[in-house]
């Protein structure tokens, strides 16, 4: 299971990387969203899957699955949500001011 | 510690039936010709599938652990409430955004009500916000 999950994560990372390398702002933002999916899965997978019970003491008996990565991922999810919201707004504000959603035309002037 | 094996088995069977229903709806979603018909498959039969399997799970928990799960019941209620509304809204959106009916459909009476100023089926010329590409792949 872990191996397959990691292969899946690899593909997600590749896809996201490809999107990030593109020119359109929305594509890039989507890329970052997929990147965060990938890394959340990665943290969980590396911590070991299906190795224990749900980490609820009243619900299940020991052994429990590793709860720490879950807490970390939760934090990471919220942070990446915050950042995504910010970037999205930034993107449409840029479109409002520069009338472009293409990085090619958002290069800025050449300096001398 | 099965409290009530019959109930438990009923639950499992309900789930199985539910999954079969869902395959049926999947079949529908492939085979049916246009969005309006496909949404039948998606909302009606798949809602039924969910209801069945949730009921099954509810029964199972009840029978197996003696656990009367209000949350599942709530969930059932919820799906019951929302699925038709969702279906309604999406079909309305589809119609208003000018998705064509499948060929061979009968009368389209609503068309004259909604787009009185237009001739027949110039579909994608709607209000400006949604552009044509939205409905393309």
């Amino acid at each position, binding site marked *: 299971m872990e191996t397959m999950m990691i292969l899946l994560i690899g593909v997600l990372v590749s896809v996201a990387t490809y999107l*990030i390398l593109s020119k359109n*702002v929305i594509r*890039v*933002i989507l890329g*970052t969203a997929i*990147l*965060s999916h990938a*890394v959340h899965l*990665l*943290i969980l997978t*590396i*911590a070991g899957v299906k190795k224990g019970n749900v980490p609820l003491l009243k619900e299940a008996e020991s052994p429990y699955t590793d709860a*720490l*990565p879950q807490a*970390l991922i939760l*934090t*990471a999810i919220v*942070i990446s949500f*915050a*950042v995504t919201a*910010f*970037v999205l707004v*930034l*993107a449409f*504000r*840029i479109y409002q*001011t*520069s009338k472009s959603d293409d*990085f090619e035309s*958002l290069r*800025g002037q050449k*300096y*001398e | 510690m099965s409290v009530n094996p019959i109930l438990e088995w009923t639950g499992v069977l309900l789930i199985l039936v539910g999954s079969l229903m869902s395959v049926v709806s999947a079949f529908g979603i492939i085979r049916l010709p246009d969005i309006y018909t496909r949404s039948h498959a998606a909302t009606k039969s798949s809602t039924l599938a969910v209801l069945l399997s949730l009921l099954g799970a509810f029964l199972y928990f009840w029978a197996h652990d003696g656990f009367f799960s209000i949350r599942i019941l709530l969930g059932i209620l919820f799906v019951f409430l929302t699925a038709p509304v969702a279906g309604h809204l999406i079909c309305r959106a589809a119609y208003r955004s000018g998705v064509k009916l499948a060929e061979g459909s009968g009368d389209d009476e609503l068309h004259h009500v909604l787009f009185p100023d237009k001739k027949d089926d110039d579909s994608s010329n709607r209000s400006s916000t949604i552009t044509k590409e939205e409905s393309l792949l």
Partner: protein
Amino acid sequence: MNNLVVMPLVVPIMIGIVLVFLKNHIRVQRALSLITMLSLIFISIVLLENIQASGIMRLDFGGWLPPYGISFVADSFAILLVLIASIVTLICLIYAYSSIGERHEKMYFYPFVLFMIAGVNGSFMTGDIFNLFVCFEVMLLASYALIALGGNKKQLRESLKYVLINVLASWFFLVALAFLYGTLGTLNMAHLSVRVAEEGQDALLTTISLLFLVVFALKAGLLLFFWLPGSYSVPPTAVAALFGALLTKVGIYALIRMFTLVFYHKPEVTHILIEGMSVVTIIAGCLGAIAYKDLRQVVAYNVVIGVGFVLMGLGVATDSSLQGSIYYLMHDMIAKAMLFLIVGTMINLTGEKRFDRMSGLIRHYPLFGWLFFIVMISLAGIPPFSGFVGKILIGQGLIEAESYVVLAIAFFSSVVVLYSLLRVFLQAIFGETSVSIGDEKPLPKGQLIPILLLACCTFGLGFGAEGFSSFVEDATKTIVNPEIYIQAVLEK
């Protein structure tokens, strides 16, 4: 008592939130933010004294002992940086009062600055690697908001690039964290160090350390500095100064911390790589600093050179070079803030961004012109200003390590720094003025005084280097001997 350790983080956050409620009371906002920074300076001085007296301080949040809970660890190195960061922020705030404008002030400028400094301070002091990530994010989010604050075209454009590149960096950070937790099974930095030492830093761990190198190099602008010139040249002057002084330094701090505390076993891989990267960084920075006539570009590439210079000290990692790095880091924070403020003021005064379109500023603003001269001298590492102590020590470290080519590049870079600013000085500050007396834009005292204060700081830091030496020596001792840090964290 130990709760004092968290104050540099929590005080600005709480005050920042209070300021949100006081959106339209600008005077109150100014006063409160000023008081906050002053109290931070006071707190960090108290902390420094405490550390000298009784060793490294530690605060376990919620009372959960390391390695299970999160701890803040205050050693001399961290607190020195907190102190300097607070001073620089204070001064930039004073500058902002007269320059930033009411629109910014009502748009939560002060809360954002306070949040950013909280993130910076947190990153300096945290002893937990995941908490470092979170502190980074606090700092970054605030910096995202600050860089885009103002909403003009160029600002938004550059901030998008800045944000996206940092998102990428944060992603790498998370990946590295995943690997780290997967291998070492802990998050406390001292505990990480113990575990790495226990099993030896094998190839896989070194790979992970390289991943951290990528992350922190991005934040520090070491080799991967592409985001820096663009994004540092768009925000308002006070913000740019804060960025130039603080943001890359956090990355540098993290690099130094990581590669002296945890991954110090394979210097032939990691440190050599850092050394090479800093050489390339310096060269690229030098090229950039003389490539453009746009003032903010000149300044931004100067930041790049500074980064390379500091991290050379880490690359060779001898006692004296690390000590030099600490000195230089402190110097760089102050001098870069000053440079940014001066350049921003020049641009505001003339309405031009290119220095070859300015001339003769010294005629109307003599003191200002001399302040530029001072910062130029200081950055070139000419005594008695602050740059020279660090420069000497790093030089010493490079000689000890027998990396003479690196040495040559490092020291030649200070000539290039001098040249890049000298031509600005000769063109823009000296020369014939085209503005007749009476027509010049007035230079507000509120903008001159902060620059003057920074000049005093750079002089004080250089001339009074002895005053800091015991702190710096203590900081170096902790860096060089990870056991001291580990003991302070894991004991009890």
